[in-house]
């Protein structure tokens, strides 16, 4: 069952990779790129998460069932976030109109 084994050098390597990615993320956030920044930061976070999942959490050497759980988890979070956020973001743009509903009102 265990095909790829997680070894000490691999663990140390991933640790260093995680720290490097952390500082990369920190560095890009200082550049002042605006909205793209968030996207970059989140992509880096996803990369870090994958390292933690596959190496630290040994997903690389486990059965598919466990990976399936991870896939489903991410899928459902993505679903929840995207379909929920689509609501406020499209209130004014579809159909295009000045929509008083998008604004706070006592």
């Amino acid at each position, binding site marked *: 069952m265990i095909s790829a084994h997680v070894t000490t050098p691999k663990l140390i390597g991933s640790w260093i990779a995680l720290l490097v990615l952390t500082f990369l993320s920190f560095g890009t956030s200082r550049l002042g790129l605006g909205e793209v920044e968030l996207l970059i930061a989140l992509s880096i976070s996803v990369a870090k998460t994958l390292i933690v999942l596959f190496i630290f959490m040994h997903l690389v050497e486990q059965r598919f069932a466990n990976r399936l759980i991870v896939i489903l988890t991410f899928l459902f979070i993505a679903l929840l976030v995207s*379909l929920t956020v689509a*609501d406020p973001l499209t209130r004014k743009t579809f159909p295009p109109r000045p929509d008083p509903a998008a604004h706070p009102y006592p």
Partner: protein
Amino acid sequence: MSQATIDADTRPGALGVGAEHPDYLRADSGLRSWLLTKDHKRIALMFYVGVILFLGLGGTFALVLRTELLTPEQTFIDANTYNQMFTLHGITMVWLFMIPAIPTVFGNFVLPIMLGAKDLAFPRVNLASFYVYVLSAIILLGAMLAGGADTGWTFYVPYSTTSPTAVTWMGIGIFVNGISSIMTSVNFIVTTHTLRAKGLSWHRMPLFVWASYGTSIIILFATPVLGMSLLLIAIDHTFGLSLFNPRFGGDPVLFQHLFWFYSHPAVYIMILPAFGVISEVVCSFSHNKPASYRAIAYSSLGIAFVGFFTWGHHMFVAGLSEFDAGVFGALSMFVAIFSAIKVFTWVATLRGGSISFATPMLYFLWFLFLFVFGGMTGVAVATQSLDVHWHDTYFVVAHFHFIMVGGTLTAFLAAAHYWFPKMFGRLYDERVGLLTSVAVFIGFVFTFLPQFLLGNGGMPRRYFTYPERYQWLNVLSTGGAWLLGAGLILALGNLLVALKWGKRAGPNPWGSRSFEWITASPPSKHNFEETPEIERSAYEYTLSEEVARERAKAR
């Protein structure tokens, strides 16, 4: 017709696997052996008692509600009590009855036996799940006594955060209840993965297992979201967290998103196990393999998956953006397809069978009508322009009661009769069973068909008083509710009587090929001495019963 058609297994010596051991009911005695048991069958029975009690409580609330609605103005309770009643009816029925009902009682009892396992993967977690359920029930009952709640089971903000009732404790109670559900579902999934008997591949499993698997996946991923949203309500109610408070720019619609992300899949948590039961009942009584095993099995997973995409159709008029409404409307149509596949496959399974007409089969017939009608009105209310009129009227009430009562409760009753011989080793009275089934159906139709018309007429739900023009339909509905209540009590009485005075049942009174019927009725404590070796699927009706038994070697 009734008794003659049941091939009661009367051959001497054929007492089923494990008959030489004392059955699980007699294996140990004393209160301790029940309360601290790790036996999945005993835990199932304890859940059985619990859910029946809460069915009674929720049903009582419902009868009070219906009686109050006999007249357009106040009949015998005041508005406040009425509002409390429908809230408590919803909370009790959804979280204390519907969601645990089939999985924790029949799932717990038969799922391990179906897989040829001695127990669930985590027996202690299973017991803990029961006690967490009891704890949640105590919290909820305590909250009912200490102020109740008048928010409706949907807990919409900002009303729920400002309501002077015990909303906080209701929220916490439901949160705890969710933990219990999650524990059961983790157990089911792990058991299905790791404890299948030798040779029992995925495509040989009984269809009930597939349905339970799908249900468990929904519970696992949807319940935490409900837990979080109710926790936010509870904290808001007590400490003023104000995350949805318009004063600070919060949007009450966001709460509805979170709530329905759980509560729409929750509908499938309630109906999927019912599908599982119906699949078993249909195949067992028509002595036929399912017209398409894979269609039923995969559509369970399909429903579990697609059920997550459709929550927005509860919010078409709630201030949802038109774009989101369109997306959710289209996605909602897909779920109906999976349900349709199931229904057609069941009907096709009947064709060419050899059908014995016992009580569970009659319940199946009711289920067919009620579920198809309820399900198609579901597609109707997901049609946006129609939903604008129907939303939050009695039409919606009638629709989901067709699914929940007409679907799940009917299937629960079918399961209660179908597995009764397995659980208690006795047969119930078939004639009384058929009669009560008819009473339940007629009562149901009279209760909820008029409510469709009320909804068309525009009567909003949760109305304590209503315009006079709606009265005659309400009177019909109330009458039906009483009949339904009476039918349920009679059905329960019939089963209780059979518990002591019923005829002894053999291991396989229905002549089913599914694996839980290999063991003795009632099964011994460990179900099987050794893991069985399975060389056939659960629906091999082309084989004679002896051959079928040989190809599922068990000891």
